[in-house]
């Protein structure tokens, strides 16, 4: 199967020669995103400069029935930007203008290639910031954040991308430019903006995004606390929640993750302690002070071995730098690793961590844990050595951990998305009918199935004839939900 020459010529002609890459070697640089386990070389990479260029590119693909995949910074960890063989990649890397900053209405209009952190940089002078803060925020783009509905450390209090986008200009899979959402918090009719957000690039390509900005909090208090065990740290989280406190962020790292992060950024973490919590509160001073005192007391009550309170913005930044670099930093303590992303109800954190440790022992592999403890979003990092032939075992363990999350009433993914990586696991979480109806949504936007095909929903081609026998969801078994 190769790309029809007529189609190729039409697609290449959609943009100027400087905006097209079709050399068979150069296009290989696009064959994977942040998940390198899957590689497919695209036939053509189009790099338009504006929304109209994106629309022309999509129209050309649509007219010729050629599948296309949108790509932002290519930092995704689920293979959401994996190209399609003989297909087209549309890179949004050149749509990187901040079009408008509106401090009065606390919003900004940006192009999709603007990075998450650049938004905050562009509005900071007005005392505003963009709240969702995925760990890769200095590089990941807002267009990718929209596609993945990205979260971040602070989404416990502030929510996800979907809670911070008023509207998007979108190129639909047939090349039409439309706007989803509107100018106020309320929209009219079914929330198409909401279903598009997090659809992993399968419903169209965003070309302009109006994001909601928040006023920077009056004060931010950040503490780093060491604990004698992961379980104690977990109880601190429960007690904070039970006290009616909604922290801006509660992050937990285990001993391996601490070691890696500290080696990478020297942020002042204690190497060797079993668990560390980063707790951050923000808001009006009076409020923050009273709640911060409560949090400190809770930490002490659970045998906190060291409590470090960030004394300056630099110290706070260092703590976060350590936390945010933790994934990639694991590369320093292991030749290879898989990053997993699953969610469990917060109350089952201790249980899931115990089970993960047992599973790691059984597989003879180390598992480092970095996670958003406030919302139960785990990021177990399975460490292995490909050279030692551990790849398959590691992959199995990583997959089993994600499925364990579902078993405990959680989700296959909290923020990295389903993409290519987990499409075939979707039947573990959803029934056939659920997936069939999701497919109806996809068909409504993209009847030809050319917009990032093969992602999110399992297909027979990728996952075998049937997506596996349906197994009742654990919630169903326990009578929490019912199925007919």
């Amino acid at each position, binding site marked *: 199967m190769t790309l029809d020459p007529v189609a190729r010529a039409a697609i290449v002609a959609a943009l100027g020669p400087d905006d097209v890459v079709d050399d068979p070697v150069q296009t290989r640089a696009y064959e994977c995103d942040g998940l390198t386990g899957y590689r497919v070389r695209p036939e053509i990479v189009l790099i338009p400069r504006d929304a109209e260029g994106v629309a022309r590119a999509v129209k050309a693909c649509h007219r010729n029935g050629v599948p296309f995949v949108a790509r932002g910074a290519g930092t995704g960890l689920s293979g959401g930007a994996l190209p399609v063989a003989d297909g087209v990649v549309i890179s949004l890397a050149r749509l990187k203008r901040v079009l408008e900053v509106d401090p009065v*209405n606390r919003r900004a209009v940006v192009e999709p290639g603007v990075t998450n952190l650049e938004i905050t940089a562009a509005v900071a002078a007005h005392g505003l910031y963009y709240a969702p803060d995925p760990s890769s925020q200095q590089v990941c783009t807002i267009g990718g954040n929209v596609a993945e*509905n990205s*979260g971040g450390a602070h*989404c*416990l209090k502030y*929510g*996800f991308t*979907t*809670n911070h986008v008023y509207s998007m200009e*979108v190129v639909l899979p047939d090349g*039409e430019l*439309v706007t*989803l959402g509107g*100018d*106020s*918090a*309320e929209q*009219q*009719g079914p*929330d*198409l*903006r*909401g*279903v598009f957000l997090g659809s992993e690039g399968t419903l169209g390509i965003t070309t302009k995004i109006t994001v909601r900005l928040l*006023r*920077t*909090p*009056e004060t931010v208090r950040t503490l780093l606390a060491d604990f004698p065990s992961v379980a104690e740290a977990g109880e601190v989280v429960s007690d904070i929640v039970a006290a*009616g*406190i*909604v922290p801006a962020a509660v992050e937990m790292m285990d001993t391996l993750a601490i070691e890696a992060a500290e080696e990478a950024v020297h942020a002042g973490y204690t190497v060797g302690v079993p668990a560390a919590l980063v707790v951050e509160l923000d808001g*009006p001073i*009076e*409020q923050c002070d*009273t709640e911060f005192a409560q949090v400190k007391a809770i930490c002490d009550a659970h045998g906190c071995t060291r409590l470090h309170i960030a004394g300056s913005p630099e110290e706070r930044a260092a703590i976060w730098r350590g936390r945010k670099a933790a994934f990639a930093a694991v590369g320093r303590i292991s030749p290879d690793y898989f990053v997993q992303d699953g*969610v469990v*109800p917060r*109350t089952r954190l201790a249980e899931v961590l115990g089970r993960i440790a047992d599973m790691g022992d059984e597989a003879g592999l180390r598992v480092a844990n970095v996670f*958003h403890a406030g*919302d*139960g*979003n785990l990021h177990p990092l399975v460490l292995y050595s490909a050279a030692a032939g551990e790849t398959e075992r590691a992959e199995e363990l990583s997959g089993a951990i994600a499925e364990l999350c579902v078993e405990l*009433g959680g*989700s*296959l*993914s*909290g*923020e990295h998305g389903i993409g290519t990586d987990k499409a075939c696991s979707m039947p573990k979480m*959803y*029934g056939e009918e659920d997936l069939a109806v*999701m497919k*109806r949504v996809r*068909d*409504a*936007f993209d009847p030809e199935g050319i917009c990032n095909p093969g992602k999110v*929903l399992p297909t027979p081609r990728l996952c075998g004839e049937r997506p596996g026998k349906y197994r009742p969801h654990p919630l169903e078994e326990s009578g*929490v*939900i*019912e199925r*007919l």
Partner: protein
Amino acid sequence: MTLTALKPASLKEAREAVLDTTGRISIAGAGTAADWGGRLGPVDAVLDTTGLSGVITHNPGDMTVSVHAGTPLRALQEQLAEHGQHLSFDAARVAAGATVGGLVATADAGPSALVHGTLRDLVIGTTTLLSDGAVVRSGGHVIKNVAGFDLSKLLHGSYGTLGVLVEVVLRLHPVPKAIGTVVVECGLADAARLAGEVLASQLEPTAVEWLSSGRLLVRLDSTEEALPARLDRLTRLLGDGASVASGSSEASGQSGAGADVWAEHAALTRGDGGAAVVRIGVKPSLLPGVLEALPASTVSAGLGTGVATVSVPGRAVAEAHAAVHAAGGTSVLRCRPADLGAPAWGPPPSALAVLKAVKQRFDPDGRFGPGRFDPWEIS
């Protein structure tokens, strides 16, 4: 032709009811928003969801709850309050017994949407019954979840045209330990100016609303210890006319000091009996201008959200749609005089074709909620 009344008590019964009935169906909850949106076309049956009621599961430690969609939110809140939790949602019609499903389907919201968003931001999972009997679950029981398409968003604001919400999973928040409201007696222009100052400050108000009775309300959710100091700073910022509201007679879903002013807010949002009630949303900075131009008899206006509810004479509805859309906003007709022929919606959104395609795939025979999106001709 007689109207068939369907009142299932379980998902199974609901599915059977939909499959066993031929023709068009209107989905109803407590009936608190029966005439919102487009005028319902002729239907063969009414599916009453109030039999699908009650909490399914509530684990306080997880701060989530799953409920049957026909559960009145007021009842749910009472139950959650025992655990110091609540759904951070304060639409006016909650007090009238509105159901969770109905509130989602009509995309209703209250003043605290400024901070907590609308129900689209608080619903984390749904189970929905489609007109062909398909039952679809989306989302789940955890706050953070990006697995699969978020179908609950499509149901939000669908006015009963896409499917029957059967179960809803909600994210909860702790009930604020102390609430305080500062009131300033002032006109809209002054209120807009003051609201701008409050929103530019770091006082973090939960709600900033202006009432056509000539009051600006600013609410703070707080801890006990911090509230006095925060109220003090807010009062000073708002200037001479500002005072902390204290009235707290038994009122609509509101409690604590200052409940009375919020009861007034709810009353104004429900609207003026004989008039047409239009819900509008524009950029906050444009809201005062849009409101000034409307012949409104009552107004409640979220100066931070850009969302307002106005009562206008029936003849002014089309004009209101036009004015709001000229300002780039959105509008929908809520309650109206029985004989009013005015359109419920303004010009359709640019993605109308997608809306039609979604409707076509979810409800190909157009069974659910005919006419709700007229004049857009979605089904």
